[in-house]
């Protein structure tokens, strides 16, 4: 068992990102799609922290700070939009939200 290198961390990060992307593409429940988006954000933070650790810099770590802040704001606004949508349409299934088509 070799020591965990940057490659390992980037691989895990890429896997997480890919899983999140597949969730966004495959699921039709808006809430689950949103969770998968969060998963993609976390995957990118993992890559940033790993690069920061293995290069001996601080910038990646500080960026993760900002990503956390933006994610918190994004989730608040997104969930408010979903609740407003549910109030208006009584559904949050993506394939039923097609009122912009024609």
């Amino acid at each position: 068992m070799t020591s965990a290198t940057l490659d390992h961390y980037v691989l895990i990060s890429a896997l997480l990102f890919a899983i999140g992307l597949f969730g966004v593409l495959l699921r039709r429940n808006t809430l689950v799609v949103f969770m998968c988006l969060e998963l993609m954000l976390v995957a990118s933070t993992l890559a940033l922290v790993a690069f920061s650790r293995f290069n001996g810099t601080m910038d990646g770590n500080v960026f993760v700070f900002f990503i956390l802040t933006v994610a918190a704001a994004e989730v608040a606004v997104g969930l408010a939009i979903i609740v407003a949508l549910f109030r208006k349409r009584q559904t949050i299934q993506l394939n039923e939200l097609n009122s912009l088509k024609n």
Partner: protein
Amino acid sequence: MANFLFYAFAFFTVATAAGVVASKNAVNAAMCLLLSLVGVAGLFVALNAYLLAFLLLLVYAGAIVALFLFIVMLLDMKETESRGFGKLSLAAIILAAGLLVTGLSTLVTRGHLDTGNPALTPALGTDIKLYSYQLFTTYLLPVQVMGFLLLIAMLGVIVLSKRWEGSDDVT
């Protein structure tokens, strides 16, 4: 020992992330997301970024997943996830999965990111003083912008969730 922890947390994180995508119930998906975030926090600890691991647990697991669960239970939607895919989407899925496997296997077999020995590289993430130093010197403007972003997000959420006079709510 550290290696074993890395592999355990990595496996745990990826498995629970797959659970987010695979679980039919939104509550289960949120719980899997929580576990996956705990796994990522463990990986942060393995990378010596203790403060970030703590913040990840606090902000994501504490606030965001709780918010998700709150909304999932508030909305109480019916479980009618239709699982059929058209021919075009199916082809796209297969193509995307193939590209993904190719890319990841290339990363594993050939990718060799040029880095120094981690034992020799200083683990800057352990030092909390460095975070504050960076935040108050190099990244001072982004910190201010983040403050405004949070303010605007708060106002936006209030506006979005307020019931306006004359709006045609169904309920």
